[in-house]
Every structure is written in C-alpha cells, then in structure tokens.
C-alpha cells in the first residue's frame, strides 16, 4: 500500500497491476445519455494504463454509425469522439456480428475500424475480462 498508487498493491513480477477492463455498450445514442457518459468513462480510463476494450452490442452498435447529424435536436454530435479513441491508445473495439446484421448494418456503416466477432467469440472474450462496466 502506498499513497502514490492509491493502495494498489504492485506485483514486482509484472511491474504493476494491469487489469482487463471491458466497457459494454448496449444503448443507442441521444435517446438516453448512457452512450455519451459511457464514452466519458472510456476516455478517462486511458490515463490509467489498463488493458481497455470496448464492446458494442445490440443498440450499442448505433453509437458508431456514420452520418450522425444532431444539430436539429439541439445536442452535441459526439460520434467523432470515437475516432479520437485511437489517440488515447484505445484500439480494441469489438462489435458483435449478429447485432450488426439484425440492424441491417455492415462495417461499412461504421465510423471507426472495429473487429467483428461472432456471439460465441464475444462471449468468450467477455468471460476473460476482470472488470466489466456496462451502461
């Protein structure tokens, strides 16, 4: 325990406590605030040098579709922020294939490069995580 690490016990072998964090996004943007405030957490997490990934499932895939224009609803279009994630070293973006297909979408409709996983692959990846934060 030390004040500088806020009580994180450092493992001398690995040189620090790195955990697998997954942010699970299952909600569409604008209709509710979860997508926007969820993204704010992801950006903050970048400062902690953890193993961060984002999963887009169900209506969460709508967060990253191209062509969002929000001027007329009087809200900020935060979709370009997903493109900035790379600059924060957050490059593990996963989308479930079935969620895309059910919504008539393909990767061509998305504003960021993602890795498309089957339901089974996504389930497996999820089970390997240590911290799952869902919105």
């Amino acid at each position: 325990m030390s004040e500088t690490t806020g009580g994180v016990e450092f493992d001398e072998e690995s040189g620090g406590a790195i955990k697998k964090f997954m942010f699970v996004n299952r909600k569409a943007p604008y209709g509710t605030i979860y997508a926007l405030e969820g993204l704010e957490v992801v950006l903050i997490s970048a400062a902690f040098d953890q193993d961060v990934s984002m999963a887009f499932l169900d209506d969460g895939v709508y967060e990253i579709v191209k062509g969002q224009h929000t001027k007329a609803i009087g809200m900020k279009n935060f979709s370009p922020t997903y493109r900035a994630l790379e600059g924060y070293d957050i490059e593990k973006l996963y989308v479930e294939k079935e969620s895309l297909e059910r919504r008539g979408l393909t990767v061509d409709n998305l504003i960021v490069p993602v890795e498309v996983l089957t339901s089974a692959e996504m389930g497996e990846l999820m089970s390997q995580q240590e911290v799952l934060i869902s919105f």
Partner: protein
Amino acid sequence: MLHIVNKSPFESNSLESCVRLASGVEGSALILIEDGVYAATKGSAAEELIKKAAATLKIYALWPDVEARGMQDGCIEGIKLVDYSGFVELVAEHNAAQSWL
C-alpha cells in the same frame, strides 16, 4: 463469469442477448434479479429461452424479487433461488460480473 439480468424478457432483449453470448462459455452462471425474475416463471414465453440457457449455464433467481412480484409458486424447476447473501457469494465465486442493463 456471472451474468446479471434485471429486465423482463417481455420488455427488453437483455436476457436473449445474454444467453446468445454466454451459452457455451465454460463456468458461466446467470442470476435473474428485479424484473428479470419474470423470466423464471413456468409456462411463460420465456421458458424456452431459459431451458435453452440452462443446458450450459447455471441459473439463479433472487428470491426477494421473486416473492415481491408474487411469482413464488410458478418458478421453473432447476432455477436455484438465492437471497442477497447468496447473490454476493455468486459474485465472489465468479471471476467477474456483467450486468445486462
């Protein structure tokens, strides 16, 4: 890992998505809480999904939520009922918990 579903299967696709991803993943369990417990009732349209999930997942329901909703007499056999203490144990026993909000 432990999956937590708190939505009625008649209102949301949370349970369906959870089962789609979690089925077949070694060592996974599912706990139904809050409105999620409606999925635990015999003869409902969700029974088929629960039975499918039960093939690979251990399924639990939070008893205080079941009882609060008057669903105590119609629980699908094989679903284990736990109290808050049992819920805590389930979280402790699994490597991580995913809430299907």
